[in-house]
Every structure is written in C-alpha cells, then in structure tokens.
C-alpha cells in the first residue's frame, strides 16, 4: 500500500517539476516580448472609417477578418451537429422549479431579450455585438430550459433548423451578393457596410443564441407528437 502511495507522490513530483519547466519557459518567452508593440491597432485605426462601424473590435470581427467569424459560425453549427449525432440521451430527472424561480424567470426573460437587443445595437460603436448578444440570448434560453419550459413541438422541426442556420446563411448570402455586385468576397462597400454588418449581426445573434441553448439541451429534440410530451410554456414534468 505504502509503495503505491510513494509511486503516486513520485509521479506528481515529477509532473510538477516538468510543468514548472514549462511554466518558466512560457513565462520567459512572454517576458522576452517587446514592452511595447502596437500590433495591428494602427492599421485598424487607419481603416476604421472604411469599415462601416466605429468600434474597432466589431470592425475587425465583421469586416476586416470576417472570414474568421464566418467559419466560427460554421464551427458552432458543427458542434451542435456533433452533439445531435450522438443519439438520444436517456431522460434526465428534473424537478419542478419553485414558485420564486418560476415567477422570476418569467420576469427576467423579457429583460434578457432587451439586453441582447441593446448589446447588438450598441456593438457598432461600443463594446458589444453579435457574440455578446447571442450569449445573453442563450442564457435566457438556458434559464427557460432549467425552469422546465420546452419549446412547442412544431418549433422543434423545421423552424428550429432554419433558425440554427440563419446566421450562417445570412453571412454567406451577404458575401456572395457583394461578390456578384463586383467587389471581392466579404469586402463590404462603405455605402452599405454598416447596414450589412447590422443585418449579419442580427441574424448571427439569433443563431448563436438558439445554437448555444440547443447545445445545453443536449440531444436532438424530439419532433414527433409521440415523444414530445412536454410542450408549450409552463408545461412541467
């Protein structure tokens, strides 16, 4: 018995030693970086007027490096497809929420939606945008799912899938339309850049929010009448 414990302690000591070497190496390389490096901020500031929005992070996300964001939307969708393809999980036991949680969630959900809309709108010239708004929307969805609410069965079929791909489809459509109009792919002409970015962000917010909430739900939701027992708002187990 003591031999095994000794072996374990030895293993951990060796691990700590190796990881200290890793930490020192990483720390050294961080500290050896120049004290001041403006990176790409100067170039972003120079071109900010051409982006259609006035907040640099939103400009980078939706205009200068729109490819990243486009592919990131695809990754989100792929993760959900991965979860759905794992098949049905066995039903987890849920307890009915208390009266306070039930009432509070009903009061809070509209506030969540309001905050999400605000974050989406403010993203053009202050910190905010599609990801933040989508996360808030997802938080609202998770809260609703935790308090026992389930979307109605008709929404679980085609409408849910359309909402999930809406952001990606809007993004790709915008990119292709711009290309057909004579610009390069994902190059937004200044006259419509602001409107296009807001449109893409609105679609992305909805899709991100619903996708994250669907990820929280776990397995693919039942679509037929037979398995979808709990429907409608307030239906509890």
């Amino acid at each position, binding site marked *: 018995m003591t031999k*095994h414990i000794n*072996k*374990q302690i030895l*293993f*951990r000591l060796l*691990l*700590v030693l190796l*990881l*200290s070497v*890793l*930490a020192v190496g*990483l*720390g050294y390389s*961080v*500290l050896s*970086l*120049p*004290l*001041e*490096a*403006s*990176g*790409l*901020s100067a170039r*972003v*500031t120079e071109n900010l007027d051409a982006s259609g929005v006035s907040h*640099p*992070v939103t*400009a*980078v*996300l939706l205009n*200068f*490096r729109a490819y*990243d*964001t486009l592919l*990131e939307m695809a*990754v*989100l969708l792929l*993760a*959900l497809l*991965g*979860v759905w393809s*794992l*098949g049905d*999980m*066995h039903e987890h036991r849920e307890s009915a929420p208390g009266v306070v949680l039930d009432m509070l969630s009903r009061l809070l959900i509209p506030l969540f939606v309001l905050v999400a809309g605000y974050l989406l709108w403010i993203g053009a010239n202050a910190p905010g*945008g599609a*990801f*933040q708004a*989508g*996360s808030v929307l997802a938080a609202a969805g998770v809260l609703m799912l935790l308090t026992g609410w389930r979307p109605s069965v008709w929404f679980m079929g085609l409408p849910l899938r359309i909402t999930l791909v809406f952001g990606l489809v809007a993004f790709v459509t915008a990119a292709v339309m711009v290309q057909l109009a004579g610009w390069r792919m994902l190059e937004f002409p200044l006259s419509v850049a602001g409107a296009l970015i807001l449109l893409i962000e609105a679609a992305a917010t909805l899709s*991100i929010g619903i*996708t*994250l909430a669907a*990820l*929280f739900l*776990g*397995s693919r939701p039942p679509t037929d009448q037979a398995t979808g027992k709990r429907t409608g708002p307030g239906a509890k187990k």
Partner: protein
Amino acid sequence: MNIAFFYALTGVGLFTLGVYALIVYTHLLRKILAINVMGSGVFLVLVALAARTQNAPDPVPHAMVITGIVVAISATALALALMLRLRDASNHIELPDESVE
C-alpha cells in the same frame, strides 16, 4: 513590471495549472474543466499582450478571443455530450488510474 505582463504571466500560470489538472485527474468532467482553464489562460495571455500599445489596445486579439470563447463553449458542450454518452454506454465516467493500482 508592466501590468500587461503581469496579466500575461497569470495566463501562463492558469495554463500550467490546467495542464496539471488535465494529467492528474481521472474524472472526465475534471479533464474537460481543465481544458477550459487552459483555454482561459491562453485568452488571458492574448488579451493582456494586446494592451502593450500607446493608446487603445490592439483590437485584433480581442476579436480573436471573442471568437475563441464561443468556439470553446461549443467544444465544451460537445465534450460534455460525449462524456454523458460514454457514461450511458459504459457506466464509467472516470478513466482507469494506473498510478494507484
């Protein structure tokens, strides 16, 4: 020392702690959490090093981190779903620990 480097070094520390937990713990949930801590460390390094400018911080790493956070959430969700599936299939949620056998 510059405050940006202090945060970056904290990020390095978080990353290393995450690697330690990833290796030591056998419970899959702890491993997933450890990977998340590692990711947070990387995000912290990126955001901290973006602040080494005269005026406003470099927005490009910030945009990368925002994208990264959402990808990390979805990857975590997928990992958790895989973990639950594994538990359903095998009734095990921990990897065999050879160091204590």
